[in-house]
């Protein structure tokens, strides 16, 4: 029942929150913190119970839900979802802490939606039933819609509607795909159609033409979420307008649902079509890497800069996934976690100065390293981890991705490397303009350095960044067996030799 508990805890806390009187703002915050912390502890228990070295799903739970259509409450965790779940629950705790002082109105409602969102996110990663997966996927939309639309910046309504419509348009196509797969999957135990993901993967022997359509139906939904160029246009708006916690979750977790979807559904279920789409997606990924980096370079708003850097980073993740070899896949999965840590932390960091000055424009700062030394240090470490400095997390992920990419197409790898250089350019350039030089604005002279609460939030992420950078083995050793299972799908279908030289 451990996995169900991870999903239920935030939802139950959200319901409890409804009974707290409106004026008890502090109580609402503490309750939300307690709920997310309990969820985090539950996911740690999952981690403890997880047997490394095994690729198959573990801690599987299976309860009949809607028997007449063969939908089951079917959960499980493997090396692919394990760390994404941990990342979600950790970032959620940090987000509640991070919103402690900067969410000042409708506090109860904010936490209510945030907790619902957490339920949806964990549910997406744990679902082994296509129906449950789709429900969770859609369930997340609503709280995110409110989080951006009610607590966001000045253009929040535009951003939130755009976010909602883009995601919804993608997911309805996926629903048709899911239904098609459903009607071609039979549960041997009952003889009825089933949404069971394991059976669906096992029985998916579609002709290539059908695979292509199905791949596209799923891929559009995932590509929008990733977001893969050219489906990315909702992202800078949503990121910029969302409150800090929203941006952190958006970058840290929601984008991963797209890349996770590719890994979990597209690759294993439609291997033939996957191979066919490798060039197209790789090229789009590279375009995303370069485009995201170039756009980031010209941003005047730090938050928008970080948002565009996400487009570039997720391009890397996609490139690694579609290298279709173990190095690429594990690099890409690790990079998903890294991006959650580094970009999550960057959004927190941007939030820190925004709370103090209510501006995020690069031009409004300069020289603040003098007044905020601790902040400047933390920012530096995170920026370097995002750039991919050896010894920090980003390096390991990017290195593996490039290794995997190089193994099947060296040209792609060269373009990818260019993206890393560009990342260094825009982040370091921004860092220099914000932190170094003379203090030009008088208001900045009195800026307070990070509070212990803020230092704690970012400190946790810094520790993780260093840990993964120095000793990634605990992560990789748990991921790789499951990734190997994904790759066996390609060997079974006789495709692997096409890709792996």
């Amino acid at each position: 029942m451990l996995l169900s508990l991870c999903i239920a805890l935030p939802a139950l806390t959200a319901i409890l929150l409804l009974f707290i009187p409106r004026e008890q703002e502090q109580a609402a915050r503490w309750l939300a913190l307690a709920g997310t912390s309990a969820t985090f502890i539950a996911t740690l228990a999952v981690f403890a119970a997880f047997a490394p070295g095994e690729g198959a799903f573990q801690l599987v739970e299976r309860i009949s839900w809607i028997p007449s259509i063969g939908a089951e409450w079917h959960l499980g965790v493997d090396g692919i979802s394990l760390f994404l779940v941990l990342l979600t629950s950790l970032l959620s705790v940090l987000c509640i802490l991070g919103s402690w002082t900067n969410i000042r109105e409708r506090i109860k409602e904010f936490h209510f939606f945030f907790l619902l969102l957490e339920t949806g996110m964990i549910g997406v990663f744990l679902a082994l039933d296509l129906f449950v997966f789709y429900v969770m996927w859609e369930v997340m939309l609503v709280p995110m819609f409110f989080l951006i639309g009610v607590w966001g910046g000045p253009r929040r309504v535009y951003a939130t509607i755009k976010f909602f419509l883009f995601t919804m348009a993608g997911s309805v196509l996926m629903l048709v795909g899911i239904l098609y797969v459903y009607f071609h999957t039979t549960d041997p135990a009952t003889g009825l159609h089933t949404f069971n993901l394991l059976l669906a993967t096992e029985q998916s022997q579609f002709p290539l033409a059908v695979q292509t359509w199905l791949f596209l139906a799923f891929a559009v939904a995932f590509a929008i979420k990733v977001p893969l160029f050219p489906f990315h246009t909702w992202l800078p708006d949503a990121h910029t307008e969302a409150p800090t916690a929203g941006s952190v979750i958006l970058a840290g977790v929601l984008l991963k649902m797209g890349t996770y979807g590719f890994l979990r559904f597209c690759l294993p279920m439609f291997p033939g079509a996957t191979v066919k789409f490798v060039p197209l997606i790789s090229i789009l990924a590279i375009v995303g890497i370069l485009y995201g980096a170039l756009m980031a370079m010209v941003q005047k708003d730090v938050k928008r800069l970080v948002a565009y850097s996400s487009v570039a980073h997720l391009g890397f993740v996609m490139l690694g996934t579609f290298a279709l070899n173990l190095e690429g896949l594990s690099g890409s999965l690790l990079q998903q976690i890294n991006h959650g840590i580094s970009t999550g932390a960057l959004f927190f960091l941007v939030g820190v100065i925004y709370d103090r000055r209510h501006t995020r424009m690069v031009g409004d700062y300069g020289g603040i390293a003098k007044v905020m030394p601790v902040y400047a240090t933390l920012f530096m470490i995170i920026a370097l981890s995002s750039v991919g400095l050896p010894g920090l997390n980003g390096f390991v992920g990017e290195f593996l991705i490039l290794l995997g990419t190089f193994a099947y197409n060296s040209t792609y790898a060269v373009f990818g490397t260019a993206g890393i250089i560009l990342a260094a350019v825009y982040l370091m350039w921004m860092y220099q303009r914000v932190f170094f030089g003379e203090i030009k604005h008088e208001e900045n002279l009195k800026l307070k350095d990070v509070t212990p609460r803020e230092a704690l939030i970012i400190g946790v992420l810094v520790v993780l960044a260093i840990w993964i950078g120095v000793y990634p083995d605990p992560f990789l050793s748990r991921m790789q067996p499951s990734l190997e299972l994904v790759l066996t799908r390609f060997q079974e279908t006789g495709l692997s030799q096409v890709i792996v030289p």
Partner: protein
Amino acid sequence: MTTVSSQDLLAILPESLLVLTAILLIVADGLRRGRNWTGVLPVISVIGLVACGAAAIGNWGQGGTVFEGAVFTDGFSSFFATLFAIIGTLTVLFSPHYLKMRSMRLSEYYVVLILAVFGMMVMVKAANLLILFLGLETMSVALYVLAGFQRRDVKSAESGMKYLVMGAFSSGFLLYGIALLYAVVGSVSYADIGEYLSAGYKLGPMLVAGIALLLVGFAFKCAAVPFHFWSPDVYDGAPTTVTAFMSTGPKAAAFVALIRVFGIALEPASPLWATAVTWLAILTMTVGNVIALRQTSVKRMLAYSSIAHAGYLLVGVVAGTDAARVATAYYLAAYALMNLGAFAVIILINRRSDSGYAFDDLRGIGFAHPVLGITMSVFLLSLTGIPPTAGFFGKLYVFSAAVQQGHIALAVIGLLNSAVAAYYYLRVIVLMYMSRPEGDVVVEQPGIYRAALVVSSLIVLLIGMFPEQLLRVIALASP
């Protein structure tokens, strides 16, 4: 010599109870004059409807036909009779407040409403085309009166008039179609028609014309594009409680009749009409949605969106399997609850009769009036088709039936349409929660009204999360 057995009479007990209620209402209204019995009519109506619902449930599971094959007594009709009783009850619960607000004190309102429900029940029970026509006309005449009920309001009067003319027109089509079909088959019974067609029919102009005219008649009644043009004006002009009622109950009755006639009796001749219905479905959902996008009044938006929903329901008719029929029935039940609920909320919010249900009236309602905000959001999200609501499951189920039958393009078009619909439903939520009201928003909320809203939104959530029970009931009832 035809004899009527006690079994026959028992089978039409729910309908008889309604007629009794209508008579009681007329008597009570006579006695009421000069006394201070304001609440008596709605109370009698609710008691009558609940009794009727209970009788429909009590009748459940008999199966077969009575009155020599003229009237169905199957679970399907019991299910819809129960649903109509619920729709009727909710409409009555929402009505007194609205009638008071609009100073409509004509007591005939409840009588006519009950008669409309009676007509709907006859429609779903009909086992031959003439009984169907009888039910349809009873329902329609009652609706013409209801639509024009606010006599002194020009829009309402126009609505009643337009509905009358268009309704008469479509009844003409229907009757003509019935006549032609009778000429070919020699019977108006669904069973005989089905038998005749499955024995290998001869393709003749009479048969084709009969089916075509029947289809046009139904399309008018269901407000399917391109026979929809009367409905937005009628919906817009009618008193809002009536609009809520019209867009749910009578629509459901028309769809059940469509399923019985086209989905079952005319099924063997489906090559003749399937393509036409497919196009009706595509046009209906697309046109309804696109026009709904551009509305400035919430009431009109809901009216057009109701056309779009008719399109989704037609997808179920096209799919034509048992599962599709269960799906359509589930969708109709879910739609009735969420649409009635949404209308009920806008009735409360829009207190000034002159503002015409402008979107702007919704500003800031969400946080100012949590019960209205939350229930409205549930209804809208359900109409959009977001899980875990009844609307999501209804859509999923209808479209899955279509995918199973290989109508994948139809499913894709339908689902893309729901993404379009998300835009205008969301607009309401955006206004409720993400914009500031002009001045204080005070909304009077009678307790029973609020209770009805909360209960319906909870049901929308519950049958969305746990659809199995309802599905099982419908599957047992499936014709």
